[in-house]
Every structure is written in C-alpha cells, then in structure tokens.
C-alpha cells in the first residue's frame, strides 16, 4: 500500500462521510483529500486556485469521482484529466448514484478506469469500496496504466 493520497470528489456530505467510513472499514488508510466540486478537484490536481503552489508532482493514488457536481460536472473533470499530459494516466473511478447506461457508457468512453454505483444499502456500499480498494490500491500499486476496468 502506498502513501499517496486519495482524491474524493463529492459534494454530498453524507456520501463523503459514508465513503470515508467505508474506506476506513476496509483498512484503506491513505490520506483522503476531499474536493466539493469539479473546480476544486481540478485546482487540486493542477495546483491552481485554492491549491496554488501545491507540489503537483504528487498525484493521488486514485480519484473517486462523483458525476453530479456543482460548477464543473464529473464528466468534464474526467475529460480535463485525460486531456492533460500530467494526469492522463491517473486512475479515475466514477462513483455515482445512477446506473443509467448512458452515464456508464460516457464515463468509459471518456477514459474512466472503473465505474461503481453507490448503492442505497450501506453494506453493499462498503463491499463496493472494498473491491475498489483491493483493486486499485493493492493490486496496482504503481501508477496504473490507462485501461478499462476488468
């Protein structure tokens, strides 16, 4: 397990709390940086705005990206991550409420590494995060190549 932070892009405080708890329950102890919208997420990644001066060479281990975000939406964030040389290999997992096919297809076509639906049932949510943690933080310790999720 690496010590790189996890970037959680989530505007819903409940979901944030539950995600953090689910990560903790799965013994994923990386620092979690929370961005409340797309702008904050991009500021963090590219060292702009509130994060001006941040050492952008330290990239997160994984970005957990919600789709419904204020200001800049999740899909736009994903598009900009993939368009930038510095971040185009960054692991991005789309976390969202919907299982609308359209969202899944668009996420993958924009280069998402994985797509996880946040279930209403908390136990299922913990299970989903556990799968994610194992996959992204243990099996692919080094910077993972951009590829579609299994």
């Amino acid at each position, binding site marked *: 397990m690496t010590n790189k932070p996890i970037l959680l892009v989530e505007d*819903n405080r*409940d*979901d944030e*709390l*539950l995600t953090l*708890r689910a990560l903790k329950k799965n013994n994923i102890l990386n620092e979690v940086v929370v961005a409340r919208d797309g702008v904050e997420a991009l500021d963090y990644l590219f060292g702009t705005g509130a994060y001006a001066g941040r050492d952008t060479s330290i990239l997160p281990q994984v970005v957990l990206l919600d*789709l*419904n975000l204020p200001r800049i939406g999740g899909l736009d964030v994903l598009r900009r991550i993939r368009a930038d040389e510095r971040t185009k290999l960054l692991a991005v997992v789309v976390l*969202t*409420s*919907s*299982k*609308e096919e359209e969202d899944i297809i668009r996420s993958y076509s924009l280069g998402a590494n994985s797509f996880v639906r*946040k*279930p*209403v*049932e*908390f*136990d299922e*949510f913990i299970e989903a995060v556990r799968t994610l943690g194992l996959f992204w933080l243990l099996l692919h310790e080094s910077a993972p190549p951009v590829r579609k999720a299994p």
Partner: protein
Amino acid sequence: MRLTFRTTLIAIVGIAAFAFLLLTATGVVLTKRAALQLATIQTRYIPKVELEPQLNAQFDRIVRGFQDAVAIRDVEGLSTTNELKQRFLGELEAAGAAVDAADAEALRFAIEDYQTTAGDVSRRLIAGETGEALVDALTTMQSKQARVQSCINKAAALDRSELTHAFAAAAYAQSMARLYQGLISISCLAAVLTVSLLLSRSVLRSMAELTQGFERFGHGDFRQPILVKTRDELGEVAARANAMAANLERSDRERERAETALRLSNKELEAFSYSVAHDLRAPLRGINGLSKVLMEDYGDRLNDEARDYLDRIAAGAQRMGTLIDALLSLARVTRTELHRETVDVSRLAEAVVHQLRQNQPDRVVEFVNEPGVEAHADPALLRAVLENLLGNAWKFTGKRERAQIAFGWELMGSVQVYYVRDNGAGFDMAYAEKLFAPFQRLHTTVEFVGTGVGLATVQRIVDRHGGRIWADGVVGEGATFRFTLPSSAEDRIS
C-alpha cells in the same frame, strides 16, 4: 365549360356529321347547277338545231304554194298558203325560248308582209296582168321573200360560240362541284384529325404527368403537385390526387410536429428520470448508511426497541431505493427503442432461474423448461419480462414445500402463446385486471416483498412488441401468465 372526353368525342362526331351534311348539300346544289346548265342547252340550243331547216322547208312550201296556184291559175288555191303560213307560225311558236323574242317578232312581221305581197302578186298574175307595174310588184315580192329568208336565218341561227360557252359553263359547274366536294371532305378530315391529335396529345401529356406524379406520391414526396391543367377527366383525377397529397402532407407535417413534441417530452422525461436516479437516491443512502453507522457505533448503548427502529429506518430507505429503480426501469421500457432479433427464450429462462437459484441457494424449486422455444423480440426487454414473471413465480412459491415452475409455449388458434406457470400463492381472478396496473399489489409486503411495478413493466414490454398478456390464477393453487410476441403485423392479435 369543362371539356370532358365525352364533349370532345361529341365534337369530333359533330364535325364528321357536319362534314357529311355539307358534302351532301354541296353535292345537291352543284349537281343542280350543272343540271340547270344542261337544261339551258336543252331548251335554248337543241331546238334551234332543228328549227332552221324546218322553217326553211315550211317557207319553201308557202313559196311553192303561191307558185302552184299561179301555175294552175287557181285563186282558191291561194287560201292553202294561209294554212301553211299558220303552220309556219306554229312551228316558230313551238321553238319558244330558243328564238330571241325580237327575232321572232321580225320574222312574224316579215312572213305576214311576204304573205300579203305574194297573195297580191299571185292574184294579179292569175288575172293575167302584165306590164311594168307587175314587174315592180314581183321584184318587191322577191325582196320580201329574201327578207323572210334572212329573218329565218337570223332567228334560227345557232350561235356556235354561245353553244361552246354553254357547254364549257356546264363542264365548269361539274368540275367545281367535284372540287368543292373534295375540298370540304379534305378540310373536314383535317379538322377531325387535328382535334383527335390535339386530344390524344393532351391526354398523353396528362397521362405522363399523372404517372410521374403518382410515382412521386408513391415515394412519399407530396411537395410537388401534379401539373395537369386540362379541364377534362384527367385534370379532375390530378386535382383529386393533389388534394389527397396535400392532405397526406398536412398529416405528415402534423405527425412530424407530434413526433417533435414527443421527442421533446421524452427528453424532458429522460432529464427527469436522470434527476430522480441521482438526486432521490442520495438522501436515501444517507438515511440507510447513517442508521447503519449509528447501529455500529452506538448499537450497544441502545435497547432492542431502538435498534428495531433503526433497522426499520434502514430497511425503509432501502425499499424506497428499490422502488425508484423499478420506476426508472418502467420508464425506460417506454423510452428505449426496440431491437428485435431471434431469441432463444428457453435459454434465457434457464439463465434467469439459474440466477434466482444462486440468490436463494436454500430454495428447492422444480423448473420445467421447454427447450428450443424461440421469439422475435428485443433480448434485453424479453429478459426483463422473464425476470419479472419467473421472479414472481419464484417469490410466490416461496411457501410451497414442492415448488414447481414451468415455462413453455402452446398454440391458441394459430397464435403462439408463451406461458409461465407456478403452483404458488395464486390470486383471486376478480383482481386479474388489476395485476398489471402499476403499484397494484394483491399481497402485503409482509407476505411477499415487491414493488408493484414489475407486472406493469412486463405489460408495457409485451405491448411494445404488439402482443398481449393475461393471467389465470386460483388462490392457493398457483398462477399462469400467458403472453404473445407477434413477430410481424399479420399474426398480431387484437
């Protein structure tokens, strides 16, 4: 006036009839004129040919009558010359119009004059008179005889040039008659031909335009009307076709408008569903998750009743999540396009039951599956149908010791009917109609869990395939759901 074919044909026949009448009339008139010319020749020239020798002969007889009377010195004999003169005059009278009236008068005067003089001279000769006076009288008589002779010649002279002229006029009249008849028949023929040609040309042009127009209409292109301006039957056909095309185009436009409206409202519905999917679920996650967190972190400090409440809160939120999902899938069934292909329904049913067995490995359910059943349907939607029907069968046989579920097909008339049968809880047929309405449940959630949307979804899917679904059931004995999936319009049942 509308120039219909009938009126055009009547016109052609009319022209022909008129031509016939004109030909006949001209023939009659011209023939009459020629006959008149000939009659003139008959009455004016032919009698003259005979008249001159007759008059001369008659006059000779008169002259001889005088000579004979003088020779036998018979004064009485002179009276016969009077009869001869009367006969002469009679012949002149008989010639009639052939002799010019003035000439005839001159001749009559000359003959009377001669008769008087000759009678006088004859009597003096018979009396034996001689001498100078008698010689003078004889000379006078001879000059009068010559006068009669010349008058006869004048009256009965046949003018050759006039006769030639008359014959020429008759011949001219006859050739004119032929010429007129020829001209009239040629011009009438030309008129009939022209009218027929014009008619057939306009008909052919109209027909070509109609054919092209109908072809366009046949391809669904109603923008350009058929340009047949003639006011005949074809023009009327074109006008009606144009009106029909205009109607069709209008209804096309209306349909397009309706489709656009439908697309817009579908889009709205999609946005709505999307929002429901995301925004309604988030708070439910909070409720469910935080009640679980509460239970985990503080459960040991709560009594059983409080823990039960927390469980109920979590379960309620979860149930609402399931409901939202069911509603979204019901809405999706209506929105998504059908992609029909040949589906092995038996294999699909097997897969669904396999999934059900995996979810509840402890259930013992006998599944009778008829192999090789096929349908021409959308595979994803058909899977949803089977998931719901077999899922229901699975659910409602939950209290059976020997649960039995069957899938297969049977023929009803000529229609292929698929069925899913179980020996589960069944239902009261009085409520059979309510089964397929959304949120209609015939069992409480305590008995059997469910959203009440499943069968509504199934019915919509079957509807979209043009099929029908119905159910039979007996409370406590089981239920049979039957549905049709017509592959094409002809075996669709109403």
